[in-house]
């Protein structure tokens, strides 16, 4: 298998960003086609294509759209461009290089679900993406692809960009809805689910950037055409963000079920500086880590990842070489989750802080042997009890790192220094980082 340029076919052309350049390369043709179809037919086509949410949850897009009430109640389409999962940077590339692709995908999706208003919620740090999208939307309005009576179809649709302000939790769909409503980005209780009661208590669909862009290609090639890549359960292509200790980090589009070892050693050019592979996080920091042995056997699709006890997630592949200390890596992640917990529910709010403190105790050489079991126990009890999955996402790295690299943790506790580096940790103390 090799890399493909399916969604990313024209990304190398700087003009693809502009309306003219986009139209020259097939832009808005699928919108014309979709507006002549019945909305339900589009939903069925998307369902049959096997397209699954590309943001991390991997839920069938067509099925999610099917949860909306089948009446004329106004509903919203929200594009989740918060991209906060550590290791992920694919949506940024898509928005900076191909904003029209997303806009077209959203108008088609909006038509399919009967939504007259959509928002693209972009994380506040993505200034270039926001500028790119706002320009594209303006161009689209001018050309009649947005606004009233689009292309004479009778369908009205308005689109706007909303800027986030720095919170990973706004990547959670109901957290995003809360933020869009002008409040703290705190996730809402489910039920009711967004498709029933979401933004401003109206039915809402939240989809990732890549998912919505892919809708255009389902329109172009049909459900069966989309399925020419991937497997039965993991259809289509996906953009993977490769980073860490590889020679050629970057975004790569591959068909699903592409072997992970090829991603690292072919496309990624292997481990840099002559080091060896030690561990891989396959789906963003919330996915359980794989050892080098496990990584060599893995294929990048939803089933294989689930079978190996991890997940495809956002498709962010973080490669860790054998010169890195796993305790330090875990401490980096526990700090992240501690910082990003919204604080609403107790197991997450207190648990993320607790595991962060324990890990840093171990890191600063003050760990006790029982801390290792304690980490596992606390993390285990953070799972499955909270409003949203951040608590689970914070617990999974703790459990997987400690379980699969326990020797490094035990060494650190016993010797007060890293097994790999042979030195004590020299960095900002925990107290310094939480001013």
């Amino acid at each position, binding site marked *: 298998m090799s890399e493909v340029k399916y969604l990313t076919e024209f990304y190398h052309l700087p003009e693809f960003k502009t309306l003219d350049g986009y139209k020259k390369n097939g832009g808005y043709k699928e919108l014309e086609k979709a507006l002549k179809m019945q909305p339900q037919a589009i939903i069925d086509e998307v369902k049959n294509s096997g397209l699954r949410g590309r943001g991390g949850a991997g839920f069938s897009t067509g099925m999610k759209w099917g949860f909306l009430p089948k009446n004329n109640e106004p509903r919203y389409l929200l594009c989740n461009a918060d991209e906060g999962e*550590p290791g992920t940077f694919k949506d940024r590339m898509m928005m900076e290089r191909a904003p029209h692709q997303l806009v077209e995908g959203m108008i088609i999706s909006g038509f399919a679900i009967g939504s007259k208003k959509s928002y693209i919620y972009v994380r506040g740090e993505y200034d270039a993406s926001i500028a790119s999208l706002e320009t594209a939307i303006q161009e689209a309005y001018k050309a009649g692809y947005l606004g009233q009576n689009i292309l004479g179809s009778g369908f009205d649709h308005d689109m706007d960009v909303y800027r986030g302000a720095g919170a990973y939790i706004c990547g959670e769909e109901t957290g995003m809805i809360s933020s869009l409503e002008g409040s703290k980005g705190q996730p809402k209780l489910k039920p009711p689910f967004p498709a029933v009661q979401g933004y401003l208590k109206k039915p809402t669909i939240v989809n990732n950037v890549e998912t919505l862009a892919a809708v255009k290609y389902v329109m172009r090639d049909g459900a069966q055409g989309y399925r020419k890549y991937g497997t039965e359960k993991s259809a289509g292509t996906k953009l993977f963000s490769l980073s860490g200790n590889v020679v050629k980090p970057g975004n790569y589009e591959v068909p699903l079920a592409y072997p992970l070892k090829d991603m690292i050693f072919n496309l990624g050019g292997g481990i840099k500086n002559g080091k060896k592979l030690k561990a891989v996080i396959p789906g963003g920091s919330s996915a359980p880590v794989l050892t080098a042995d496990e990584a060599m056997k893995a294929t990048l699709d939803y089933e294989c990842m689930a079978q190996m006890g991890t997940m495809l997630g956002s498709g962010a592949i973080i490669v860790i070489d054998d010169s890195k200390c796993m305790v330090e890596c875990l401490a980096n992640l526990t700090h992240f989750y501690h910082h990003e917990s919204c604080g609403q529910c107790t197991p997450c709010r207190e648990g993320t802080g607790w595991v962060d403190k324990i890990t840093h105790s171990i890191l600063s050489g003050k760990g006790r042997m029982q801390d290792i079991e304690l980490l596992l126990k606390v993390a285990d009890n953070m799972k499955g009890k909270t409003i949203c999955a951040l608590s689970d996402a914070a617990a999974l790295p703790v459990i997987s790192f400690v379980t699969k690299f326990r020797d490094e943790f035990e060494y650190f506790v016993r010797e007060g220094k890293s097994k790999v580096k042979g030195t004590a940790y020299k960095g900002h103390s925990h107290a310094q980082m939480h001013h």
Partner: protein
Amino acid sequence: MFQLSAEGKQKVLNELKRYESKQSAVLPALYIAQKENKGHVNAEVIKELSKVMEISEAHINEVCTFYTMYNKQPIGTHHIQVCRTLSCMLNGAKELSEHICSELNVHLGDKTTDGKFTVTEVECLGSCGTAPMMQIGDKYYENLTNESAMNIIRSLK
């Protein structure tokens, strides 16, 4: 006493009408006010926004303290935000951050004595493929080395 300029006030009023709900304007309004208040939001700013938008101070403060991009303390002219999360850490972000701090002779989170820079460590900025990297103001600076980072910083006025 902080007061929005006439232009700023108009921008805020426009935001109030722009979205489906008036309250959605709180996040954009805080950005507008922050820009007019030399890059940070304090109690005076929130009081002013509360008056102009007719939304309770407690609510606006909740939003301000929840999101990291609203600075609660005065910052230097240039806000240097070095990414510290895993992919960047694996590529030397910690060393880069320490280097910048020592070159500028400042602790993390503090302002340099000439008021030009504040250096902070922030979480994943979505630029993992070009690590290590930093964001200064609204711009990303990627694929950094200790040297290239300092060159960029020193070139800023």
